């Protein structure tokens, strides 16, 4: 079995758990952070289409299981974003941490703004604009801070399974 998607899905499950714990403590304020955009960069930049699609779809299903959204909606959204990213990645810079951070921020913004539609709630009616702005800002800051660590975590986890993504992307048919 391909270890790539398994490692990516497990890393994303860990991210969902950590996000849940951060939000547990932030509930006192009350604000929340949304980190789903972090699931995308490694798959979008380094994985092949089939592996990435499986990883994103399963990650989305895992996230959906604990949220009051139609089951599979986040999975399809992540898969669609991954496919778009995969289609245009040859025209984008891919080396280093900066593309990962920028990609995660853009993906997080899109996924965050898609949430009210998935939840069936009006964008403005069910949350104040103040809350929306504060949550989005906090989420983007946390995503920017966590992105380099999360990239390194996934790459190291894959290295433990004998997969060197940095080398792989330079091979014929790879991402670079």
């Amino acid at each position: 079995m391909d270890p790539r998607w398994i490692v990516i899905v497990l890393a994303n499950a860990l991210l969902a758990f950590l996000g849940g714990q951060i939000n547990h403590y932030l509930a006192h304020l009350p604000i929340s952070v949304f980190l789903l955009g972090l699931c995308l960069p490694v798959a979008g930049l380094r994985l092949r289409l089939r592996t990435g699609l499986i990883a994103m779809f399963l990650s989305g299903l895992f996230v959906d299981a604990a949220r009051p959204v139609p089951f599979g909606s986040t999975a399809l959204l992540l898969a669609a974003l991954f496919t778009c990213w995969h289609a245009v990645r040859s025209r984008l810079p891919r080396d280093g941490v900066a593309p990962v951070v920028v990609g995660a921020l853009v993906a997080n913004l899109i996924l965050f703004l898609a949430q009210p539609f998935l939840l069936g709630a009006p964008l403005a009616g069910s949350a104040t604009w103040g809350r929306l702005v504060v949550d989005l800002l906090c989420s983007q800051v946390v995503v920017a801070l966590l992105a380099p660590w999360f990239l390194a975590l996934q790459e190291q986890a894959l290295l433990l399974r004998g997969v060197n993504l940095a080398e792989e992307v330079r091979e014929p048919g790879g991402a670079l």
Partner: protein
Amino acid sequence: MSPLQFIRQRPFALLGVVGLLWLLTPVALKRLARVSLFEFGAPADFAASYARDLQQYWSLRTRSTNELLQTARDLANLNASYETRIQENETLREEVRRLEEALHLPSNPEYRTEIARVVRRDFGTWSQRLVIRKGRNAGLPVGAPVIFSGGVVGRVAEVYAYTAAVDLVSSPTLRIAAVADGDSRPFSFEGGPNPPFTQARGSVEFVPLDVYASPEAPKRIVTAGLGGVFPAGIVIGYIQNLELDTGGLFKSGAVLLDPRLNELHEVAVLVPLNPEQQ
């Protein structure tokens, strides 16, 4: 590039196939996948919750003996007052039962209380939820009301083997029939929208015109007991202001919820003893 050429590209064709397959997947299979994936992640949340309990235990161990003695004395006073209240409660219950028999009234639904620890709080932008450490193992049903010492917490939305998800009263997904304290005319309460850095809120609509409230003199609202979910008389919050609806027939306004709602550690689930009665 024409749109036709664009969608003919392989990645998007593959995405379309994945989407189509997912739409055609039987609902039972999706339900099974959802429950399985939730249960797969549940032990991690459980472990974190137990770790927090252990952390609290060790922090309490650092307290001095004098402090503990003081707390024990306070608790003894509290217990004495609760003993008296329990006796009063029993007398009132007996009186209600006698009156129901005398007047041939249908009896109020009865509940058993199931105390549960909070595993995770999720005060998201658009929905607020709690995960509690009891589920099917404690016989919790979907839709059971959840309360705490400050009033309504929410309603059980999903039940799993050892956990349950509770939709909070501050969540826009929750609607409750409410009445103003001392009034019997019901109106609608809905959770949210919640601003940041302040206590949770809700809103009321279809409030009768002769009900008044202001920040200086807020009006307490309680559950109406309609709809068969929440028993009557449980505190929801305080109406801060009321304004005329666009139609001019009713009023609507903002409700301030209990500030402790954001930091709950333990809640009580009311499990109906005779679900068919409701």
